[in-house]
């Protein structure tokens, strides 16, 4: 028996633990999952960008929201127009406190007229329950009961077509379908955290292992590769996707106002439906921010390689940057004055560029602005030239096709 002190294992642990050479375990919401399987991240990364990568995402918080007022609850809590959401649709959304500051972000899937599944990074049961007062709705946490796999990469559809009961060729971007894999009922959504063609497969935790086995067997001819969260971390930065506790702080966790972020500041304008009917939490604050403009924005930064080369040439070295995503704040300057910071930076193998997600103060967030970002060259802090760009950095033609 596992002691209650131990971190939780996911339903795929029996398989994943045996496939990992590195045994590089990472913590994720009280669970352990693999950071990487191989000694170098390259193969796992390229599986996402050129093949099929199988990622255990079971630690995601998952909730079932059911009842006549289920849509009304989510309409009120999230920034999306849930009342108009069709069955089979999935929305990515953030949700805010009444000051319009982000509490968390995740997906909402409409399984049925009166049944939704919601995912989040942080526990959300209490927040949902508080907002459900007076509504006829039942919220159940299914995090442990439901296993989840993310199959990402240009070959992911071909792999699923080999093992799902029906082909998924018609499943559109951010839609969901119910099907089965080897007689095991699963729901498959065309979603992911990589910005590539990809799917997430949701199933009963009890039946997780046979689904894993089926996928691995069907994917053999396509080079299916178990992939850890470190390679996914590189891909999600390329896709311009941010992460709670890394790129922003939940409003409820912030010690000071300066640590809070609004969805508009985080670049989620497209997911804040201010034209939707009725009240939703944070509406007034977001309307005001929309009118007055955001004080800062999350943008992309491309570090100029020539500039980096010069800094390193000064000490007689070629540029040395880690071949993985770095979660650490790096000051961003304009003419010697700090105007923001990069929250995650990474080498992008597909773009062959050094990129970062950066919080930039007005007016420095306009695309094309020249700034500098701190790099440490042989233990010395230097400033490398960088350019502000729109997110995402990378969006392949096949992502939404």
């Amino acid at each position, binding site marked *: 028996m596992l002691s209650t002190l131990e971190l939780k294992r996911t339903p795929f642990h029996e398989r994943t633990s045996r496939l990992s050479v590195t045994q590089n375990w990472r913590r994720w919401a009280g669970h352990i999952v693999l950071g990487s399987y191989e*000694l*170098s991240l390259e193969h796992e990364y390229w599986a996402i960008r050129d093949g099929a990568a199988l990622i255990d995402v079971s630690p995601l918080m998952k909730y079932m929201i059911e009842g006549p007022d289920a849509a009304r609850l989510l309409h009120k809590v999230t920034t999306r127009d849930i009342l108009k959401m069709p069955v089979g649709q999935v929305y990515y959304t953030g949700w805010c406190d009444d000051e319009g500051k982000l509490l968390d972000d995740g997906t909402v899937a409409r399984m049925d007229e009166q049944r939704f599944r919601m995912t989040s990074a942080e526990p959300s049961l209490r927040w949902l329950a508080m907002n459900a007062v007076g509504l006829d709705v039942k919220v159940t946490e299914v995090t442990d009961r439901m296993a989840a796999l993310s199959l990402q990469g240009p070959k992911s559809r071909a792999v699923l077509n080999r093992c799902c009961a029906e082909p998924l060729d018609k499943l559109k971007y951010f839609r969901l379908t119910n099907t089965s894999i080897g007689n095991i009922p699963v729901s498959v959504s065309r979603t992911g955290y990589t910005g590539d063609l990809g799917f997430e497969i949701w199933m009963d935790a009890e039946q997780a292992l046979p689904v894993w086995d089926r996928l691995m067997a069907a994917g053999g001819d396509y080079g299916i590769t178990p992939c850890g969260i470190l390679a996914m971390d590189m891909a999600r930065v390329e896709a311009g996707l941010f992460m709670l506790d890394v790129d922003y702080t939940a409003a409820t966790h912030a010690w000071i106002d300066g640590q809070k972020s609004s969805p508009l500041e985080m670049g989620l304008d497209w997911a804040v439906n201010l034209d939707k009917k009725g009240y939703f939490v944070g509406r007034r604050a977001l309307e005001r921010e929309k009118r007055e403009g955001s004080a800062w924005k999350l943008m992309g930064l491309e570090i100029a*390689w*020539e500039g980096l080369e010069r800094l390193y040439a000064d000490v007689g070295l*070629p540029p*040395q940057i880690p071949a993985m995503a770095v979660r650490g704040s790096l000051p961003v300057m304009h003419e010697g004055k700090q105007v923001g910071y990069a929250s995650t930076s990474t080498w992008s193998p*597909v*773009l062959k560029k050094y990129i970062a997600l950066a919080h930039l103060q007005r007016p420095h967030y306009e695309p094309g602005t020249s700034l500098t970002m701190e790099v440490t060259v042989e233990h010395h802090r230097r400033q490398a030239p960088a350019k502000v760009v729109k997110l995402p950095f990378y969006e392949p033609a096949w992502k939404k096709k």
Partner: protein
Amino acid sequence: MSANHYDAIIIGAGHNGLIAGAYLARAGKKVVILERRPIVGGAAVTEEIFPGYRFTEFSYVVSLLRPEIIRDLELPRHGLKILPLPSTVTPMDNGDYLASWSDHDQTRREIYRHAPRDAEAADEYSRVMARAAKAIKPVLSLVPPDPSSMSVRDMLGLLKLGKYAKSLSEKELYRIAKLVTQSSADLLNEWFEFDPLKGTKSASGIIGTFLGPHSPGTAYVLLHHYMGEIDGAFRAWGFAKNGTGGVTAAIAASARAIGAEIRTNAAVKQVIVKGGRAAGVALENGDELHAKVVMSAADPKRSFLQFVESKHFPDEFTQQIKNFRVRGSSGKVNIALSELPQFTCLPGESPLHRGAISISPSIDYIERAYDEAKYGQFSKQPYIDMIIPSMIDRDMAPPGHHVMSCFVQYAPYDIDGGWDDAKRDAFGETVISTIERYAPNIRRAIVGKQVITPKDIERIAGITGGNIFHGELLLHQLFFLRPAPQWADFRTPLPGYYFGASGAHPGGGVMGAAGKLAAHEVLKDWR
């Protein structure tokens, strides 16, 4: 300007021609790149020889493609992806194997299994070689100054070179001096004792040369192997998505986007000379194109002995080009397979199938293979460098099926009695039966194969002599001597005629430096 008038004409749409064209277009010039074949790419092409199976026909790995070219031409945006080629494995005659990975601990542990002393030596050796490569690398991106010239430009170049040599430590200079004169066998014998290790390492010193591991000068070629390692994260070493044709497709797309025109099925007959200057080209089909500048990205022999009448060059220059050694020494066998080759030493599917597989059991094995070539035969037991592209890029073959690329040395261009179909078949058979000794299922798995001799390289890719580097990387054919003394600065004795391909400094491989440097020299002269 009318349709057939350009600022610059580039002959040959291999990677160097495309790169030169792209850089000239980037500088605002009206450029046309002419290609003899119906497809672009030169010796960096991917072709579907059997339906569904795509062969990276000639060159098969990307090693030294210059980062500044990737950046300047925005090649990733035009589809360039370089996938990892993480390992090398050498099957041994006793059924075991010797592997090396990019991870040092893993490699040390593996070598330790066979030869404990070599395990530590290997680590030190790779550090020493990488440091020597780092020291020599800046020279690659330099226009070679002519040491006999008193011109300001050459003097400045020599000064730069001298300054650079001064920046190296004495130890580094000695090491480099030794490296450029030694044989790879001598160098490796100083470091190691285990035969498969020495054999495999020595192989990278003879690729594309008509030399054996005991020939002086081969140690220098080993260095090239380490140059890629110093680019760090930018490292362009690996297998290009869609084969090396993927690299040239990306360069072509970039060149077109910048405004260069590319014409295929446009074989050049002759360079038009007017008033002592190159003024255009006449095509085989009778068309004439005019330009201020013509650059050849073909091999030196074609560029100087075929495209231009000899009366336009000094005899001495013509003689030097005639003497330039372009003896092809290697062939390719590309195989379409219905199943993965099962190496006795690697049952099932192993991560090592995603890397290189090298038939190089010892230095002696390779030297013996060379002996036969010296006397006009192809090797009966050749050195083979294999990769299975479909294990790296699943779009290279139908699902579950595979393609295998086998680089084979030695296969002399000047084989006794000349190449014919029977000899080509015999060469292919030799390669298959050599592989069969290590992977018994190979014959059963063959769906189709393409055997390429140096003669075929010449015929298909248009490289005289079929030498993969357009001219051997020999000491007397490098730097300010490439392709001829006094003409290593991408200019030629014919004003307005430039030369920017693998036969120029800094030499072959899918590196692109020659094309880029040549384009810069053209622009420097532009008036």
